[in-house]
């Protein structure tokens, strides 16, 4: 096992020497990888911020359940028992028709309601569902609509649907962008390693004659690709962080004009780690494909 570590240590040292030996090439490759990765990285960050903003501003949607005009107190109690048994429900509130009338009167419609001579409003329940999935809200409303003594169910979830659709679209776009740029980065690393193999052909041949195994020869290239990817990941992280620093104030000022308080947040440590690991993986993948393709011919 210690021999295994020693060989990897040698391979890392070898890869670092190669990276340090061509500083211009190393910096340019890291910039290419970093700038390309900062696009999906930044996109993900924007989506994350928008999602948290939407959650903060709008809260969770409610479902209003209006009972039949002829429903009695016993009917309301029976309905309440059924609501209690619903697992998708976080909480509910019973609004008797008298209370609803008082609320409307307090809202400035007292004269209009007084002219009617009777209370036209039904008893109602206001429900707060669990989670944020519009599909679940819709299912819940449909189920309750079929209950006896329920006259009308109002689900105000159109905006939630739109938001989720927009976020899903954004996520798909970011994923597609990440996939395309990731593929491009694999090609960049593939080509870099191909050139490395060509320039080290003599060393590879001599090593083979002296008893080097394929893993021994491949290892430094894997590390080279991985380290180049990691450097690119750090550049991407720096670019995203810089973008957040530059945009934070203008975005906050824009939010202020809408009467909202909004802070553009940079990537947390998990997101930062994910970006660097993703870049490292892409570098390793490009190296692995290139080594497999080109070492067989040396």
């Amino acid at each position, binding site marked *: 096992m210690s021999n295994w570590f020693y*060989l990897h240590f040698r391979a890392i040292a070898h890869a670092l020497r190669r990276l340090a030996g061509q500083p211009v090439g190393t910096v340019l490759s890291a910039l290419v990888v970093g700038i390309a990765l900062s696009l999906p990285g930044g996109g993900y960050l924007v989506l994350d911020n928008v999602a948290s903003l939407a959650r903060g501003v709008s809260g969770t949607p409610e479902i209003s359940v209006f009972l039949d005009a002829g429903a009695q107190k016993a009917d309301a109690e029976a309905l309440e028992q059924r609501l209690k048994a619903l697992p998708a429900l976080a909480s509910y509130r019973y609004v008797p028709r008298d209370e609803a009338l008082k609320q409307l009167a307090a809202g400035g419609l007292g004269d209009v309601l007084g002219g009617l001579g009777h209370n036209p409003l039904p008893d109602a329940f206001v429900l707060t569902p669990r989670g944020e999935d519009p599909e679940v809200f819709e299912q819940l409303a449909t189920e309750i609509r079929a209950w006896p003594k329920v006259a009308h169910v109002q689900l105000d979830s159109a905006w939630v649907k739109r938001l989720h659709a927009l976020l899903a679209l954004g996520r798909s776009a970011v994923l597609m962008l990440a996939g395309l740029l990731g593929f491009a980065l694999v090609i960049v690393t593939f080509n870099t390693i191909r050139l490395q193999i060509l320039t080290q052909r003599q*060393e590879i041949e001599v090593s083979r004659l*002296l*008893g*080097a*195994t394929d893993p*021994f020869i491949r290892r430094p290239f894997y590390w080279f690709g991985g380290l180049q990817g990691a450097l690119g990941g750090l550049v991407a992280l720096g670019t995203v962080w810089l973008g957040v620093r530059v945009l934070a104030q203008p975005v906050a000022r824009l939010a202020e004009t809408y009467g909202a308080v909004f802070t553009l947040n940079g990537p947390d440590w998990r997101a930062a780690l994910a970006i660097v690991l993703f870049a490292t993986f892409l570098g390793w993948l490009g190296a692995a494909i290139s080594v497999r393709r080109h070492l067989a011919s040396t």
Partner: protein
Amino acid sequence: MIVFDEVAKRYAGGYTALAGVSLEIRHGELVVLSGHSGAGKSTLLKLIPVIERPTSGRVLINGQDVSHLPRAAIPYLRRNLGLVLQESRLLFDRSVFDNVMLPLVITGHPPRDAARRVAAALERVGLEGRGKEMPAGLSGGEQQRVAIARAIVNRPSILIADEPTAHLDPAYAADIASLFRSFNEAGVTVLVTTHDASLFAASRPRRLVLAKGLLTEDTRPTGRLAHEEAA
């Protein structure tokens, strides 16, 4: 022991380098293989570390048939052989020390012990204290000595050299020839190809001559082997 059993090698295009060679090389022998260019000397040598594979026949090393050795097993065979090629094949971006160190790095030798072995190998070829120099600053003979140090640093039991004196002036060539004799005296089986067998005459080697892919001469030295005499 190295055994060639009816070994033939034909290259793509139809060129026949070896046309059925059979011979045995015993442990501790010093064998000088000569012949004209294209006689098959290099091909015969390349069959031992499986740089080439025979078209027919078998090559056995210590009883193991290496003709059909799986690709993954070849490196482990080569680690037990010392290999000196016609050109020194040194890495010119690395120091003499690092060049000689390479076989020990490949086998994952502990660095401290490896450094001792490299120093000993350099001393053995007369290059003590010159490990920090770069190969480009050495003469052709010195570069070949570095290649020899690299070949012996793993303490192989078989040393194979393909025209190690080919591009050297006579004085350097004689030095290199005496080095191989000294390794043989230490018990190493040595197989050398050369155009000038007289360089090794003082060592009383076994002389093989190849012509057009066939073994035409096999002259064994009279008396005991060199390393037996030394003992």
